[in-house]
């Protein structure tokens, strides 16, 4: 009965039904985008937590005058063998674009920070000698040029030989996949000049096993010796990777879009019920109680909401690429999506039907029976 009833209603009110379904489908789509964004942010947070430098502190040094680069490297003399240095906020030109790079430095021993998909990590010699070698993330491979058996990445007019690809096999790891890591000593001259001209240096020191307090002290001593007028500030390490999505904002946006869809559905359903008072009156005359009528409307709305969920999911699959560009992460239908969809169906049907149901209850068979 419910299926034939809904079929007849769709036939009778195609435009109203279309707009109810459209509103709810777009709402489903937006909720899914929101869930995917939040999943993505969560994943990014987890990755960041997993791959960020261990026992790290951020150091800012302000020089009185432009420092000499070789003397800058002298700042790290006698720091712990396992302590590494990451120069922050460095970008190099690549073609017409600028590419963020991660210059790393060790004094005695290279500690592998990222997993390798293929190739090898830097050697201490390459670090010390400033060899033009690079480790690139999987997403950066499109920028790499193959020459014979070697691969090269051109940055700041210098050619860097790609010695390894960093990332996790068979899995996207956003924190790593877009990275380019080079020895700090291999920075192009132009980049060094630009860096030193600011008279400021931002770097992170990190150690895989212990807090680098002693290294901090050692760097301060070196600074006082090499750059007596310079000033050093140390602060706890904070990642420079920005989370793309704000959870609160995303949730608020989702709720807002959902409520708009509900308001739209309530309006249209009210109109729909208005159109159906005759049918409701007849049903009541032939023995349908208010409960039966409300149940019927609720079931119909559940079916409409369920159809909207399916259409919403289909839209996602169709527009996945566009959405991926928009939120920078593809939508994967997950258990979260499906369970949210079930809640969505029931909640939408319930919320949408309250006001129209109250109208339907007020319909008296006597009021409509002798209508033409």
């Amino acid at each position, binding site marked *: 009965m419910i299926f034939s009833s809904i079929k007849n209603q769709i036939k009778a009110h195609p435009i109203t039904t279309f707009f109810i379904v459209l509103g709810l489908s777009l709402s489903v789509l937006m909720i899914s985008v929101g869930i995917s964004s939040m999943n993505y942010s969560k994943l990014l947070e987890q990755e960041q937590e997993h791959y960020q430098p261990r026992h790290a502190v951020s150091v800012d040094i302000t020089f009185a005058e432009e420092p000499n680069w070789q003397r800058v490297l002298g700042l790290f003399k006698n720091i712990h063998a396992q302590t590494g240095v990451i120069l922050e906020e460095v970008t190099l030109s690549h073609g017409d674009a600028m590419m963020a790079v991660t210059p790393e430095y060790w004094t005695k021993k290279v500690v592998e920070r990222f997993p390798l998909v293929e190739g090898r990590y830097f050697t201490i010699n390459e670090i010390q000698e400033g060899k033009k070698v690079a480790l690139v993330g999987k997403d950066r491979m499109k920028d790499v040029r193959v020459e014979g058996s070697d691969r090269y990445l051109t940055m700041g007019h210098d050619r860097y030989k790609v010695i390894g690809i960093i990332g996790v096999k068979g899995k996207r790891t956003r924190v790593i996949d877009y990275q380019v890591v080079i020895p700090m000593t291999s920075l192009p001259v132009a980049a060094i000049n630009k860096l030193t001209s600011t008279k400021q240096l931002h770097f992170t020191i990190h150690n895989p096993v212990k807090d680098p307090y002693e290294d901090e002290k050692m760097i301060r001593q070196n600074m006082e010796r090499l750059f007596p007028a310079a000033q050093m500030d140390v602060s706890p390490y904070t990642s420079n990777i920005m989370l793309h999505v704000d959870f609160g904002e995303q949730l608020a946006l989702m709720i807002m879009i959902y409520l708009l869809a509900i308001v739209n559905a309530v309006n249209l359903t009210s109109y729909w019920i208005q159109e159906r008072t*005759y049918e409701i009156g007849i049903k*009541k005359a032939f023995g349908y109680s208010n*409960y039966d009528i409300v149940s019927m409307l609720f079931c119909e709305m559940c079916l409409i909401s369920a159809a909207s969920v399916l259409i919403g999911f289909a839209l996602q699959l169709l527009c996945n690429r566009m959405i991926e560009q928009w939120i920078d992460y593809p939508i994967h239908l997950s258990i979260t999506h499906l369970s949210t969809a079930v809640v969505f169906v029931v909640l939408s049907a319930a919320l949408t039907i309250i006001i129209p149901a109250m109208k339907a209850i007020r319909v008296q068979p*006597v009021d409509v*029976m002798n209508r033409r």
Partner: protein
Amino acid sequence: MALIELENIYKTYGEDEYTTVALKGVDLTVDNGEFISIMGPSGSGKSTLLNIIGCMDVPTKGVYRLDGVNVTTLRDKELSRIRNQKISFVFQHFALMHHFTVFENVALPLWKRELSKKEIKEKVDHYLEKLGIAHLKKKNVSKLSGGQKQRVAIARAMVAETDIVLADEPTGALDQENGARLMELFCQMNEEGKCIIVITHDEKVASYTKRIVRIVDGQIHSDTKGERQ
């Protein structure tokens, strides 16, 4: 025990100075298998009386007993059940669901009962056949003529197999020929034991019935029993 017992029934609409009294102390008893016409001028209260008898409206005052049960105190759920199982309706403008097929309209009272789809189909097919409209089964009712629509409405009333059939100006939208056919159908139903109450202002229609109750200004003016003419 009478099938329908109305005792001192009052029905008023509106409040204070806008009050309209539609029924003023109506007493009426109807037995099983009676064929009654309720006549009266427009606004005399005959339709209000029919709505109260059909449990579609409740009296402001008085007692209405249907099959010995005081229905004036019943809730929506029980009244709905009574409407479904004891009373059927035929209306002047047919009261059919426009976007539904003939079958769906006729089957309407049966969906509320605990019947299988097969049983529903058999019953509906039987009455459609009986009324000669089986070929219209899958047609949308909006595409039917007035006579055909009234037959669908009659089929819906018959399929419910209730003791009482209430008809409000059933021939009002029909031509003379179709009107006469309809009244013949009512006579046939009455002969099968149904209690039929027809509201009409047409003496010709009333002549088919065995009892004529005349209402004037919300009160029973006369109640004449006799043989069908």
